[in-house]
């Protein structure tokens, strides 16, 4: 992952009210946290709260698809089989839920047949099929469809939008996108969806190519930070990183994410920012972006330039000096977090500050740990 990738995503999601992209393994713990974070995002957005129940249900259905296909195949353990993609996005009043999971190739014709079956039925016919399948599970194998797919079509009130993308000789990715209108009940199928499934697939591709685990644009209050931390911890656990580097990454994440929440320019009561974490050559690359008040820009620049010119010993001394400062700054913790980050990374604290208007600037920070 490099800085260009960061800006590639920043550009594309900058207009989103919120956006969560995840490209990694799917355990129950992780899916729970992804739902928790998405629900938090929805509840935090007045225009979306009405559809929380529906969105949560649909997300859970997507995850069931993913988890169900995570199996041992032909006695051969395939450790990437639980890898998948998940997207929730709110843009121009529309809420998108996209998932991508690996499906064994030989299962595709049957899955396609079920998808087409569901898409060919009217609302009433779907309701009837749901009852039939519920009464007799075997129908699924004899020309019916899985309950999950039927429910997704019924609850979303639209045709299932799907795509199969080749992955390797055994698997393809099965992508599925649900579109919900925040204001009205359902998104009409005859409307053009401004964010198409193929764009979501492009995001996934880009994340995979650049080894990006998670991207989040939205509010960075404590309730949103925790699910993000948990998801990353789960992934670190799976990668069997040693305790020292796990804790180091955790610490850097806490400091950077809490910096957004403590120091960002608050607009409409929200502490918004963009956060991204990926891997490269065994290192973690972490990027953040958020608005700050122009009046903080000079001090921040001075501090960052200062700490980027210090060696390890000097950083430690500066850290201890800050620790011993008796006054508790109004903006608590200002500075000391960045100094402590600088002590633990292998890169400088790379940053850019772009002036937006007379009040605010956009700050990006990039570190490698």
């Amino acid at each position, binding site marked *: 992952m490099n800085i260009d990738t960061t800006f590639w995503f920043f550009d594309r999601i900058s207009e989103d009210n919120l956006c969560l992209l995840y490209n990694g393994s799917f355990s129950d713990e992780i899916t729970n946290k992804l739902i928790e974070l998405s629900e938090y995002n929805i509840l935090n957005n007045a225009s979306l709260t009405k559809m929380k129940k529906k969105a949560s249900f649909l997300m859970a259905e997507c995850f069931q698809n993913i988890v169900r296909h995570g199996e041992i195949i032909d006695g051969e353990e395939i450790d990437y089989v639980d890898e998948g993609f998940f997207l929730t996005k709110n843009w121009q009043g529309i809420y998108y839920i996209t998932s991508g999971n690996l499906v064994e190739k030989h299962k595709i014709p049957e899955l396609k047949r079920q998808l087409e079956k569901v898409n060919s039925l009217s609302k009433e016919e779907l309701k009837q099929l749901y009852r039939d399948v519920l009464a007799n599970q075997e129908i699924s194998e004899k020309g019916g469809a899985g309950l999950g797919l039927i429910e997704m079509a019924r609850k979303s009130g639209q045709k299932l939008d799907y795509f199969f993308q080749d992955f390797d000789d055994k698997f393809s990715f099965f992508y599925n996108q649900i579109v919900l209108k925040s204001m009205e009940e359902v998104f009409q199928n005859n409307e053009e969806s401004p964010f198409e499934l193929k764009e979501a697939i492009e995001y996934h591709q880009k994340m995979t190519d650049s080894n990006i685990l998670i991207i989040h644009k939205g509010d960075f209050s404590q309730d949103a930070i925790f699910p993000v931390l948990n998801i990353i911890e789960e992934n670190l656990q799976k990668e069997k990183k040693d305790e020292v580097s796990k*804790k180091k990454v955790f610490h850097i994440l806490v*400091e950077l994410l*809490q910096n957004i929440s403590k120091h960002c320019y608050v607009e409409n009561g929200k502490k918004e920012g963009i956060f991204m974490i990926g891997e490269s050559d065994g290192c973690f690359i972490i990027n953040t972006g958020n608005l700050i008040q122009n009046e903080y820009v000079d001090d921040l620049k001075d501090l960052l330039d200062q700490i980027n010119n210090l060696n390890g010993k000097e950083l430690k001394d500066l850290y201890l000096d800050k*620790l011993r400062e008796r006054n508790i700054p109004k903006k*608590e913790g200002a500075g*000391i977090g960045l*100094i402590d980050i600088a002590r633990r990374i292998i890169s400088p604290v790379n940053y850019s500050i772009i002036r937006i208007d007379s009040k605010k600037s956009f700050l990006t920070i990039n570190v490698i740990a």
Partner: protein
Amino acid sequence: MPTKLEIKSTRDTPYIIFDAENNQFEIKGNSLPENTNNFFEPVLNWIDNYIKSPNKSTHLICDFEYFNSSSAKMIYNIFLELEKIKESGNAIKITWHYTNGDDLIEEKGLEYKSIINVPFELIQK
């Protein structure tokens, strides 16, 4: 004598017990609250009151899983307050517990040890 101060742990705040009567002083767990000042204010106030007539010997046990850098400052403030116990001729010591291999917490302990003037012992769990 000040009443006992006991704060239950949460996902982002530590368990704290400061009990003068039973001579028990302990901070344990995670500390990364959204507002560190608000969380630690009652703790600092309690200590401020306690040091007016402290026990003959006070032993603070710190057993952190993780703490963020704004908590680091508050923890330092707690130590500074407790340091004042020495002025009245009473004893204060701090033990700092860390898990074997937890470089971050060990390092933070060593740093505190180097900048405060009370007996400070690091103990590997």
